[in-house]
């Protein structure tokens, strides 16, 4: 009833190519964006920013990156944690070597450095596929984390191997360090994520994205219609690593503030981000966000609900939470193997016919 596109005519190519051709979708997305930019900063506090918004935004960025590679180009990667580490350590080194560098630039440069590393580790993808590639990227994960733990130059030779972000300002507002206001940190990350989500959406709609999808669906056929696997695969690795690197930089610099390589960037991170895109939906920009939200927020919601509302004992709640997370993941994958994004799409289709489905 409310969600109906009857009467919305497209009279130009421009209108036809819009990201959100349906008026209701546009209104909804702009309302959400307005709320995120204008309303949330007013009520956000330390708890909301540290436990909910920053983890969600950082992981959403990482999931976006991995989704470009795995979801769109079909190259399975288990190196996300390692690439996030590259982004984080790049940001740390840039900030300590060039303290006067603008922090926005630092994040972008960290992404570029990670893109370079990603391309190097993406070279094997030209010869190996599927599970074998997963193992090759696994090597990247272990090698990178080992290197950051081992080579003193990366953590400025401090005693414990921890990297700590000094307080930095963007346009006169502190965005890192303990004194930064929750709203500033949130808006900083949010701006990055929104801008680059838009960029990603447009990349996958264009020539490059179509080449990736062709490679994903059948690489030999793609080669026959004139797509170079070398260019397509390496550009996917580069773009994906760029996103993951920025995610790592935001994750370390803005959210955590200090990190040690093994715990913050271990193999668990790689799996976590991979699960996010599987739950959210492979090959879907929206799916990256839904997956990140699910994996980051669900444990906290479950925990707070059980402990504060139901009064369950803390330990029991933790065990139940771990179990329930597993059950929910299985449940959603059985209900919709294509992830939450597909579920959302089905919902919209149903809504279009409601209340008279045929």
């Amino acid at each position, binding site marked *: 009833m409310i969600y109906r596109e009857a009467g919305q005519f497209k009279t130009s190519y421009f209108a036809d190519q819009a990201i959100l051709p349906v008026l209701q979708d546009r209104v909804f997305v702009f309302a959400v964006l307005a709320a995120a930019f204008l309303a949330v900063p007013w009520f956000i506090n330390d708890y909301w920013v540290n*436990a909910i918004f920053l983890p969600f935004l950082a992981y959403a960025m990482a999931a976006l990156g991995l989704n470009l590679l795995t979801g769109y180009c079909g190259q399975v990667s288990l190196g996300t944690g390692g690439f996030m580490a590259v982004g984080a350590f790049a940001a740390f080194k840039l900030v300590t070597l060039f303290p006067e560098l603008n922090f926005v630039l630092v994040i972008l440069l960290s992404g570029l450095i990670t893109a370079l590393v990603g391309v190097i580790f993406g070279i094997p993808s030209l010869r190996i596929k599927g599970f074998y590639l997963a193992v090759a990227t696994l090597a990247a994960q272990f090698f990178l984390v080992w290197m950051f733990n081992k080579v003193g130059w990366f953590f400025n030779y401090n005693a414990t191997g921890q990297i700590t972000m000094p307080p930095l300002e963007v346009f006169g507002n502190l965005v890192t360090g303990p004194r930064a206001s929750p709203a500033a940190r949130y808006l900083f990350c949010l701006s990055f994520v929104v801008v680059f989500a838009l960029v990603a959406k447009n990349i996958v709609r264009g020539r490059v994205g179509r080449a990736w999808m062709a490679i994903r669906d059948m690489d030999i056929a793609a080669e026959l219609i004139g797509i170079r696997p070398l260019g397509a695969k390496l550009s996917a690795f580069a773009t994906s690593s760029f996103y993951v690197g920025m995610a790592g930089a935001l994750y370390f610099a803005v959210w955590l503030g200090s990190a*040690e390589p093994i*715990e913050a960037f271990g193999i668990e991170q790689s799996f976590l981000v991979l699960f996010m895109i599987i739950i959210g939906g492979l090959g879907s920009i929206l799916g990256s966000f839904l997956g990140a939200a699910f994996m980051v927020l669900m444990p906290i*919601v479950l925990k707070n609900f059980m402990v504060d509302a139901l009064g369950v004992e803390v330990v029991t709640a933790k065990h139940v939470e771990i179990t329930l997370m597993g059950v929910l993941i299985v449940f959603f994958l059985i209900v919709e193997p294509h992830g939450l994004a597909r579920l959302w799409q089905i919902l919209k289709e149903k809504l279009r016919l409601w209340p008279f489905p045929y």
Partner: protein
Amino acid sequence: MRSMRVFGAAAAMALTMPAMVSTANAYELVIPSLDYRTGPYAPNGIPFANGYYDYLTMLNERDGGIEGVKIKIVQCETAYNTKQGVECYEKTKNTEPSRALVYQPLSTGITYQIIPKASVDKIPVHSMGYGRTSAANGKVFEWIFNFPATYWDQAAVFLKYIGEKEGGMDKLKGKKIALVYHNSAYGKEPIRTLEKAAEKFGYQLQLLAVDHPGQEQKATWLQIRRERPDWVLMWGWGVMNQVAIKEASSIRYPMDHFLGVWWSGSENDVLPAGEGAHGYLSGAFHAPGDGFPAHDAIKKHVYDKNKGAGDHGRIGEVLYNRGLIAAVYASEAIRNAMAIHKTKDITPEMVRDGYENLDLTEARLTELGLPGFTIPVKITCANHAGPRKVAIQQWDAKAKKWSFVSEFYDTMRDIVDPLIEEDSTGFAKENSITPRDC
């Protein structure tokens, strides 16, 4: 669309949030307990949390709290994970009515995370014998305490003990000492001290890292078997401890030359290795066992009323006692704060003053039912690490008991102090802190 899930979650959380706000009108002392009863570090996290919880419950049951003000313990499960630790910190720090009075996260990683945050939020952190060593310098770390001793003191004391066994510090020359450590900020803490001391005493230091969680150590111990170091030191935690001790006994490494940090010396760590663990050494700063009047009080006022956090039979284990002494320090600091500020409505800022003027004498320990349990502690504005003395305890596998085999050694100030100075001034510079005068 992106934030839709967020708002869905927000709605769910909004429903659950009000339950966090206390409705009690009487003043209460909020002490958060960031424990970990799940994950690979649970074997060590559980007894500590039980000791902490039981002592505070005992105060509530016996004395109606501290000086008659009830203690409200807020538990939060961290699973020894820094991210969950931060979530717990943020969630508990503003608990009504007093706000969180002190944090004792029992994790070096979480301590590193909350040091800058707590300093801004003005909440004291007591990382009792763990965390950042240079927090010993109270001039820079106003809000952080790490008495009764630091990792670096402990490393220095271990060398003293080794020197004594070898027949003099000069005998260390040419000896091989291996360090088996948890590959994290925690495990890496002693390395610099051991390296500095190696320059002075001329022993050869071998570093062997064990990755989280530490279940796989075959390669490490194969290396030890091949190189045969004269002494092995260990900085381990959780499952890593048990595995290391088992591996050491299976390569027949002499247990009385195997020395663990005080986080690697509890019953849980040695029992799985059975007889093989006989003679294993570890650092300690308090007595094991449940033979103190305070334990009787806990049994009477907590366990007999069925309010105990753990198992009756495990009262008095090493880590239980460590949790207990942590709670003793916290409650004494709060008591002290009440005396200094002459009020019972205590805030975290006041508790910091209580910690900074803490003077826990032997006479006071006896009053608390812990005669001879640990060394007296006196904190000053400049010295947040207290006495910095460490003793060595040894495991008797037949009697299944730990017992002290040395007196309390003093640290090596000539080696450790310059390192603390260097590290804390580095931190002050990075974070633009002007050290206090004291």
